[in-house]
């Protein structure tokens, strides 16, 4: 195959371009750049006002995921009287609420919301949980250590654990039917919903549909798409006729994504690693120097004391010497005088 100069240069340029932008994207990923989710990623819109609480989605979920049959059959709707959460072998549950204003009961389906920046994935220390560009947050049981920090971290209280398994416990949760999506099928629950209370599609178009419905029926819907911004946004979106807090969905989660919540302490790592060795070596050097100075001062003091005492001694000796010299001179003078006097006296006597 002949490659023209132009093609070659072009592909070379493209390679360089891709490499550089790739590197740049990585660098930006490390910083706190605002992430709006993967483009073209899929999600599900749950219009709560359409849900009739038939539990067909629960049944479908159970079937497509090959989960064990529950004690209460899916046709038994009495279970709706009890508020439930997702369990190890129930990836989705429908709850019933009696909203104050509405006469009718409201049903809400609960499952993993597939956050755009999932708390579970950011908390996982082995990358067993991952947000895929296609939308689903998926789990790799082959990596999982079973620390359950993902369950602690999830603000929606979704991941469950196989506490009953001894050697191979897994974290379980809705996968948005990632394997089925790959085959071009719909998620089990969406396919089973008889009322189209669940719509699968690209998140962007689901948001448009949701907004359009709110605009068209402002009296029917609360003017909020739950999941658009909650915890940085989720792939699963909700429309409701009742305030979300009254149908078991927390409104106090905020819009900060989980990775942002922990980015502060994580960014302190290089500061500690960089600063401590320098500071501590400095402290060590200072304390050594202090010891040295103290030692020197001690030596000097000893020396000074010695010099002083020497001087004092010398002075004393000098004084003594002077005294002795004086006494000596006095004694000599006295002797001389005495001798002179003696000789004078002798002379007088001889005369």
């Amino acid at each position: 195959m002949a490659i023209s100069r132009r093609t070659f240069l072009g592909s070379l340029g493209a390679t360089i371009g891709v490499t550089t932008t790739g590197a740049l994207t990585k660098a930006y990923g490390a910083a706190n750049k605002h992430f709006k989710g993967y483009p073209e990623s899929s999600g599900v819109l749950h219009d709560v006002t359409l849900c009739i609480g038939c539990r067909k989605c629960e049944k479908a979920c159970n079937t497509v995921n090959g989960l064990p049959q529950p004690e209460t059959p899916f046709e038994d709707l009495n279970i709706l009287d009890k508020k439930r959460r997702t369990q190890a072998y129930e990836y989705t549950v429908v709850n019933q609420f009696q909203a104050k204003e509405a006469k009718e009961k409201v049903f809400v389906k609960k499952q993993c919301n597939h956050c755009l920046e999932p708390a579970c994935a950011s908390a996982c220390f082995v990358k067993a949980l991952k947000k895929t560009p296609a939308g689903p947050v998926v789990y790799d049981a082959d990596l999982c250590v079973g620390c359950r920090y993902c369950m602690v971290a999830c603000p929606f209280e979704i991941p469950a654990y196989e506490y009953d398994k001894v050697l191979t416990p897994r974290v379980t949760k809705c996968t948005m039917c990632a394997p089925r999506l790959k085959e071009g099928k719909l998620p089990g629950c969406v396919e089973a919903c008889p009322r189209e209370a669940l719509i699968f599609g690209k998140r962007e178009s689901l948001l448009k549909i949701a907004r359009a419905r709110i605009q068209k029926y402002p009296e029917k819907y609360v003017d909020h798409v739950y999941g658009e911004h909650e915890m940085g946004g989720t792939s699963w979106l909700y429309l409701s006729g009742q305030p979300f807090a009254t149908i078991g969905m927390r409104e106090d989660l905020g819009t900060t994504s989980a990775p942002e919540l922990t980015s502060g302490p994580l960014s302190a790592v290089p500061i500690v690693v960089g600063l401590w060795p320098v500071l501590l070596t400095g402290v060590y050097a200072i304390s050594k120097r202090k010891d040295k100075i103290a030692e020197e001062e001690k030596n000097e003091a000893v020396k000074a004391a010695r010099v002083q005492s020497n001087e004092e001694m010398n002075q004393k000796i000098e004084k003594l010497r002077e005294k002795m010299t004086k006494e000596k001179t006095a004694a000599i003078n006295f002797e001389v005088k005495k001798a002179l006097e003696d000789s004078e006296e002798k002379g007088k006597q001889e005369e």
Partner: protein
Amino acid sequence: MDLDNQIPENKKFSLFNMVTGIILAGGLVLTILRFTMGLGTVTNLDNNNPWGIWIGFDLLCGVALAAGGYVTSAACYIFGLKRFHSAVRPAILTAFLGYALVVLALHYDVGRPWRLPYPIFFSQGTSSLLFEVGLCVFLYLTVLLIEFSPAAMEWLGLKKLRNIIVKVTLLLTILGVILSTLHQSSLGALFMIVPSKLHPLWYSSYLPVYFFISSIFAGMSMVIFEGSLAHRYLKYKMDETHLKESSGVALGFAKAASLLMMGYICIKIIGLSIDNNWHYLTTGWGLWFLFELVGFVLFPAILYAVGSREKNLMFIRLASIWTVLGIVLNRLNISVVAFNFHLPAAQRYCPSFMEIATSVFIVTLGIVIYRFIVTRMPIFHEHADYKTH
């Protein structure tokens, strides 16, 4: 006189041996249960409460109370407080055993313990604070092992190797401080991901700072507390230097801890003000918060201050136990009591008997190993061949 290997004549069925023997046997049964029946049988953990006292007590308290190692060695080797020298070895030993037991306890808690090396060697989840904790604990345990090894080598007579390791003491100490700063604070930062689950009085962006500062006075208090126990039961192993310096260590740490605890209260108040959480203080949670902060930080801090001013060792020892209890209370409040505060009482966690028994077993195991080592190796005294004085 050589104090090594001088083990007192001990009755095989002394009270100590009886009690620890029963606990260890019970622990063995629990271990078998845990690894044959699974977490569901042994613990009260559930999907809403994935972390219980094996994390709240064994991990969080274990790591905080093992902080004496880096605090004492930093005081002695970096800050040049040479009079703390005789306290370094007992502190390093406690820290080493503490961390080793933390890692042991994690084997009970995680679902597949044989995969614990995964985050370090196989698949690094660098965005997780737990990864930071795991990596630092792994590295620090290694550092502690090396820091402790000279004592074992003196005992075994490995003179050359011992002398090489002693030469890098400063390097190891600095490494220890870096790693401790990182993981002590990260243990607090673990909970920064759950502003919606942890009660606002305990949730704060200062959590890493709180955990780090409190680990320092936790470590000091443990050194004092342990010292008083050792004085009571292991005095015959102590040489003159140790006996002479020990009250100085207690007085010095008491004063430092008192100041640190006052500072800790100040930053707690700053945190309270920044998040404007004052109104919660009048609620039941507020009372519990004040019970912890005033009852278990301020009061022992005052007792420490009085004790160090009056040079009253009784006060200081009492304050050290009080502070240790306060640390336990704080860590349990964050991981268990104030965690999931929004859930109805029926869905809250309360540890099972077997969970508590397992924690007791692990602490007992620590005490037994500690006793084994200090009665044989030069911990409370200097080895005859390596005297510095």
